[in-house]
């Protein structure tokens, strides 16, 4: 009952749009990209084969490139995840540090580590999202 999985199999589509708040205990898994129009609360989990774009606040766990794609990115209006995973890399916020970004950010792997940058314009990251 507590388990809510949305795995839609649409072979000819590469992304799904989720238009709701993803709450604790809920998990969204999709082989392509995932776009969330809403918040991802702590305790919720989003696992995508491709990129993750959250048009809202990402406070739960996000795993992009879950099958090993190191080029996958995670972007959110407010990027404050409990834990962030890209391919086989796992990161979390440093202990005791307030981490409250005021602008949209994007996380990606650069030189083998996960880095977080300002998401200045979607255009700039267009290539990343198209991969």
């Amino acid at each position: 009952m507590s388990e809510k999985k949305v795995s839609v199999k649409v072979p000819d589509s590469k992304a799904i749009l989720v238009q709701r708040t993803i709450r604790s205990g809920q998990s969204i898994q999709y082989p392509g990209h995932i776009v969330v129009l809403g918040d991802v609360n702590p305790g919720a989990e989003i696992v995508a084969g491709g990129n993750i774009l959250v048009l809202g606040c990402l406070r739960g766990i996000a795993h992009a490139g879950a099958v090993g794609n190191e080029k996958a990115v995670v972007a959110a209006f407010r990027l404050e995840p409990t834990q962030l995973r890209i391919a086989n890399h796992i990161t979390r916020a440093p202990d005791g540090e307030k981490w409250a970004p005021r602008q949209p950010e994007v996380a990606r792997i650069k030189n083998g580590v996960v880095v977080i940058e300002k998401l200045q314009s979607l255009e700039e990251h267009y290539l990343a999202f198209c991969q």
Partner: protein
Amino acid sequence: MGEVLVITSGKGGVGKTTTTANIGTGLAALGYKVVMVDTDIGLRNLDVVMGLENRIVYDIVDVISGNCNHKKALIKDKRQEELYLLPASQTRDKSAVTQEQMKELCQTLKNEFDYVLIDCPAGIEGGFKNAIAGADKAIVVTTPEVSAVRDADRIIGLLEANEIKNPKLIINRIRPDMVKRGDMMDIEDMIEILAIDLLGVVPEDEMIVVSTNKGEPAVMDKTSKAGQAYRNISLRITGEAVPLMHLESHTGIMSKLRKLIGF
């Protein structure tokens, strides 16, 4: 060979998770090797109380289903060297685990740790049965309320029916001022009703809320009364005889007068 202690209560919200976190930290601070297992699958909370929520990669369901080795799933505490957490799964439900599997897990952990603390979910259904399946001893947490004491009584009966003899009682969130006024059951009242041994009494303390906010168990806070109570409880678990702490901070003129008159 270690010991498996289940922390249970029947009623929700009486402080099982807080108690588990504090006893776990308290025992580890005394130098014991301790693992805390959250069995509240689908509603895990021990991780946030311990401030370890952002380190979870694998959980108890992964271990039990053979997805990963238990060593890989155990999360080391931030502060205590020999303290570990096995988190519950948040996206599964209680049916993901069976009593046999829990027994096996407890046996494995017992071989590696001095104390295995099981944080039990509220209720008396599957989750409770799983939590007590591998336990050697039980700690029953209650508060001085009619509902909590009634549920504690039910739990004590169920523990005894499951061959877990002599559970120990922790009375949580007691308010000395209300006890004094006669508006809260006192320790003797509850011991008399439940007829089990007392392990400790924890006073209501704002520091518990503060420490939960921060994800740091109050047991390490030397200024906290509840912290002191949990330190005493940890010592008693290891077999030391520690007298009950004095809950009243000061004796008022009225109680002195009362003693004088002989009430």
